[in-house]
């Protein structure tokens, strides 16, 4: 589904991703962990097509297509979804209008007719229930005045509406209370199938108790330096990153 080979990306000439490799197959859940500033959000943004990052080398193939040639909107229409670490507030754009436009543009791209007003409302209602999000929120402007946790929930709500093939969830768990964490994780699990895949970026093993990963990767200094099963997350929880950093730095020194 997704194949990243030797990806290098820079911002303002500063290289952040330094030759990153990753492969994700349908049905899989991947967790990416790693110290602050290691490039996790950068990877997510590059996958979603944020133009301020320049891909200087390497390849990103998604379902056989070269992602780097697609605009952000076309990537979304192809089935990529980014749950933002810091969702932005957009005053004056109503959640309703935002979602209706998004869903219908994605449908158009896929050769489907736009939803009728009734169908759209029904879909909104179903997805709202799925992520247990309050109607009061969806009646407001996008994220405007939402609490940190509400913003994260809203990301999962949007994901539910858009039904992506590959969801990249950047620290969707941070800022959530215990109940919200469970609700969000349940939402993700309910949307999971053998056809789609999820990449969760997180700092905490706790989330991975709910969304059980097939693979755990450690991103450090712009590269994936270690990949293993979910047991790696427990190990990191216990020991931190120092031992990995040391190993990598030593390797590089040699």
């Amino acid at each position, binding site marked *: 589904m997704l194949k990243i080979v030797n990806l290098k990306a820079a911002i303002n000439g500063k290289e952040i991703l330094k030759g990153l490799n990753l492969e994700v197959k349908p049905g899989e859940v991947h967790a990416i962990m790693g110290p602050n500033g290691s490039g996790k959000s950068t990877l997510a943004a590059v996958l979603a097509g944020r133009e301020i990052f320049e891909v200087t080398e390497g390849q990103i193939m998604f379902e056989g297509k070269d992602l780097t040639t697609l605009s952000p*909107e076309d990537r979304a229409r192809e089935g990529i979804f*980014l749950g933002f670490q810091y969702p932005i507030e*957009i005053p004056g754009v109503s959640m309703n209008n935002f979602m209706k436009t998004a869903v219908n*543009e994605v449908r158009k791209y896929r050769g489907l007719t736009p939803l009728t007003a009734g169908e759209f409302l029904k879909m909104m209602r179903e997805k709202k229930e799925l992520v247990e999000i309050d109607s009061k929120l969806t009646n407001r402007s996008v994220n405007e005045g939402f609490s940190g946790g509400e913003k994260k929930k809203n990301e999962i709500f949007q994901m539910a509406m858009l039904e992506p093939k590959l969801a990249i969830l950047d620290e969707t768990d941070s800022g959530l209370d215990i109940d919200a964490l469970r609700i969000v994780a349940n939402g993700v699990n309910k949307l999971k199938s053998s056809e789609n895949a999820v990449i969760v970026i997180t700092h905490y093993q706790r989330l991975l108790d709910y969304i059980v990963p097939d693979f755990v990767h450690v991103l450090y200094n712009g590269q994936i330096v270690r990949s293993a099963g979910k047991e790696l997350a427990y190990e990191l929880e216990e020991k931190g990153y120092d031992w990995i950093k040391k190993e990598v730095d030593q390797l590089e020194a040699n």
Partner: protein
Amino acid sequence: MTSYELIDTVQELKKLYLIQKEELGLRLPAALTQIQQDAFNAFNQLGIPTTKAENYRYTDLKPSFSKIYKTALSSQEIQIEEDALFNCDVPNLDTQVEFILNGRYVARQLDLTVLPSGVVYGSLLNAWSEFPELVGKYFAKAADYKDDGLVALNTALALDGFFLFVPKNRQIKDTIQLITMLDHTDNLAVNTRNLIILEDNASAHILVCDHTFGESHFLSNSITEIFAGENASFHLTKMQNANNHSTCLDGNFIYQQANSQVIANAISLHGGLIRNHFHVKLDGEGANNITSGLYLTDRNQQITNHTLIEHLKPHCMSSQLFKGVLDDEAIGAFNGKIHVHPDAQKTEAYQVNRTILLSDTAKMNTKPMLEIYADDVKCSHGATIGQLDDEALFYLQSRGISKKEARLMLMYAFMDEVVSTIQIPGLKERVEELVSKRLRGELSRCNHCDFKCH
């Protein structure tokens, strides 16, 4: 730089005054001809304002006054296509439609209607002859022709326009839609004068739609005086959609007494060079004024919003919100002043101007000014000039929304705050639609009233 020769147009206008005086002088009320004479003298001294004058610093009138125009007397030649005009009603809006063509009131039935309730509306010129005392009591009392050349010019030359008188305790429920149209095969200069009087506890709503027919160059210098008595309530919305060769100089002079409430909006969609001027005097405790503007200006059009809000008495509130989007080589200006006089304690006065520039070549000048001579006041002003928010754009795109649509959504969101100040039932929705059409480039700048096409 092209050098312009102003003198011809100004000479023409001066000649027009003398012709008018000779032809109509004896038929006009003496009070009016006296004011016109005074204003003419004032204009001879003041002339057309130049960019040296603080109030016109950002509006260069030279090019506009350097074209050759016919003048308003000849407008009587125009044949009015009544059907075309009277079709222009705003759908789904209870309106009473009134027309001004080339500065003259166009009567459907009567030049002046006097309702049993005492409400009077119609032609200002007719009001002068039928109610000279009433008109004389207010005319030129809010718009001072002694310190502004454009006001002097208008006062000397304007003969007609819309007149509305709402007596004490009377409410006009339906919105009055005033369509002011410029239509001529040649370039035309027009001075229009409106006078609106609301006595104590009276209320009315007016929607003014400025249009041009055809592609002639028009120079419109119009003045509206509004008097709101104690506890009166008035709502004015202006939709400006003139052709891009036009010059629209639009002065609004609003005088408010105690506890009156006036809401005014200027929605500038098209119009070559537009200068909106709002001069508000809050001259009674508890008076309340909301003045806002929205501008969508592209190509080489120019827009200036100029305000002067005077707080003369304590406990008044004023709030200004001007927002707009400039594209291509458009030039915008906001020149807004809050003036709190020494007596006006407990004043609340706010002012905001925000502009988005869509191109590197568009230019915005913003100059908010506070002049405060009272010590117990709450005043604030803020101005920003910026671009569309990149991060917000990316957020929308990342959900599958095209860049073009995302930009429209953000521009629309940016402007919605102003549209939301419109409180005439049904009108807000129509304006929203027009603004969104304008943003999409679907709003024609041509021959017909956009309110009727849907």
